[in-house]
């Protein structure tokens, strides 16, 4: 059983604040896919566990539901793992605090994805002394 477990991957599906589907809807959509997955419903979305190819397919399909507002992230521990699950330990698991923090700007990330812009990554060059002098002289006039 353990050997089977080690070949599986877990992914978290997180709904952005402006997502046009709700968390129960997301879980229902995942169940309707009829893929061999373990689906755990969570407050931020869902956690899915299964073979890598199946999980990737599910993630791709789920993303298409609302491309800019559905985010996914890998998770090391399988869902409900007693080492991490709060039902056994009490209190939120460590990763949740981080998720909470990142969720604060997730709405802006969605907005940026909806309105993409090309930006320049090169640092602007320093103004030469002569140009600076010229500007200063012009300002003095």
């Amino acid at each position, binding site marked *: 059983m*353990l*050997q089977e*477990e*080690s070949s*599986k*991957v*877990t992914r*978290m599906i*997180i709904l952005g604040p402006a997502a046009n589907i709700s968390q129960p809807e997301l879980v229902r959509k995942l169940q309707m896919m009829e893929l061999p997955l373990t689906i755990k419903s969570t407050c931020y979305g869902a956690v899915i566990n299964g073979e890598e190819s199946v999980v990737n397919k599910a993630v791709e399909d789920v993303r298409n539901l609302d491309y800019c507002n559905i*985010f*996914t*992230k*890998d*998770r*090391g*521990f*399988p869902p409900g*793992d*007693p*080492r991490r699950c709060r039902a056994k330990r009490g209190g939120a698991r*460590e*990763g949740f*605090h*981080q*998720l909470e*923090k*990142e969720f604060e*700007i*997730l709405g*802006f*990330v969605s*907005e*940026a*994805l909806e*309105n*993409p*812009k*090309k*930006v*320049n*990554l090169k640092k602007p060059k320093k103004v030469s002394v002569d140009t600076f002098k010229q500007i200063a002289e012009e300002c003095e006039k």
Partner: protein
Amino acid sequence: MKNAIFPPNSLILADLVERRGHEALVLQKEIRKRVTDVEIDSPPLNITEEEPIKGLKYAAIEVPSGVRGRMAIFGPLIDAAEAAIIMEDAPFGFGCIGCARTNELSMFCLRKRGIPLLELHYPTTREETMEVVNKINTFLDGLEEEGE
């Protein structure tokens, strides 16, 4: 292209990298190997005494074992990276990324690799977030062009 991200467990960075068709080298993949490994049968232990020894590749013996243990997990990700995105001043420091010295060492190792690198500051406002996302997307698109 394999992209290392820092913080290595960031949702935003990992998601943006994957959206552009690249592979995000995230911490969780390394953790998964350790926690679902058939050899480990005592549940709370996902770091064994082997890790600080493996960490010697990245940090000297005088460095605390906590840093070396963490570097044993971060190190293979840094080695495998073909490009990297570093987000400094991230407000979170929980779990594996809760060690400031390891974070400094990881960023140093990434900078030392000489791979295409994008350095950013963690955004806090709408404008900053928009700029950061656009910069990441432009950087990732640039990598595709370089690859071709």
